[in-house]
């Protein structure tokens, strides 16, 4: 490996460390936010926790799994996966319209 490539990797390593610190911080924020009552509205707690989780997952996927600079082939595979994953989630949500309203307590 030449010196230029070595320096490039050293720069990448610094980036990994920043992502690591962000993940640690995000974890502590997630725990802290779960103790905030938000006026007794649990839906806000859920939204905040999921927002932080998605942000953390994006950091892992983009930097540790190198999705930020990957080949088109991988994006294609993940595009199909995302389509079916979102479909799966929506199927679950839509299934609630199959229940008579009084049997499901939201």
């Amino acid at each position, binding site marked *: 490996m030449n010196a230029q490539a070595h320096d490039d990797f050293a720069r990448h390593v610094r980036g990994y460390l920043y992502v690591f610190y962000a993940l640690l911080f995000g974890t502590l924020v997630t725990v802290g936010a*779960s103790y905030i009552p938000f006026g007794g509205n649990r839906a806000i707690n859920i939204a905040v926790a999921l927002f932080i989780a998605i942000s953390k997952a994006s950091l892992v996927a983009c930097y540790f799994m190198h999705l930020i600079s990957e080949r088109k082939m*991988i994006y294609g595979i993940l595009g199909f996966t995302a389509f079916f994953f979102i479909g799966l989630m929506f199927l679950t949500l839509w299934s609630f319209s199959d229940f008579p309203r009084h049997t499901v307590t939201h």
Partner: protein
Amino acid sequence: MDIPYTVAPRPDTGLYNAKVGIWLFLASEVMLFGALFSTYILLRVGAPEGSWPHGWLNIPLGTLNTLVLITSSITTVMAWASCKMNQFGRFKVFHACTLLLALTFVGIKSYEYHDKFTHYEITLKDGRFADGHLLRSAPDHVVIHGRVVTDRTDLADLRAPTASHQSEEVTLPRAEIKKMESYGPWHNTYLAIYFTLTGLHALHVIGGAIVIGFLWGPGSGLWRRDPERFTNRVEVSGLFWHFVDLVWIFLFPVLYLL
């Protein structure tokens, strides 16, 4: 005959074969965990108001396990970067850390499981409920460290502002006990999905640790013969490990905090 495209990129995909393979495998894993997450949503949204358990898991231990797994992710990516920078010694150190962190994660998870299997809900014949950890079991009585409540819904939300956390040693004659059940996966739907999700995830951690252990130990001989191919193996195993971390990033808030 050599396996083709273990190092050089395949002309049509632009990637070495193992990388395409691991991403296809991870795509199937997304659907596997996605199906279980959608099951969780279905069970939770369909549960009667106020009955879904909240605060049943140990948040400090869950937080610690999250930090352990995140740290193992950085040691994994650093192990791969060390191979790329031709620093095999550093690779060994980083992946030894990954293995130790994986063992720590499984150890903490085992402790949490043990805690649940020794935690009992006891229905008494007078209609009350005793709840706590089993201390002693004798032929004529049991002793738990917990509390007795009259309304079972008091046991559901342990993080509610009105929830009582007073525990004491309670002796219960067996003649007064109608039913006694531990907090195993059979106890309710919450624990069923908790054990299914975390059990499957723990199996992934163990599987990943075995592969990383192989690359750290007997499989590391490949570094001398074909360092680029070895580095690609480290990258592929690392992608799996990051996926395992990624799944836990969602499991932790969903099961422990919300």
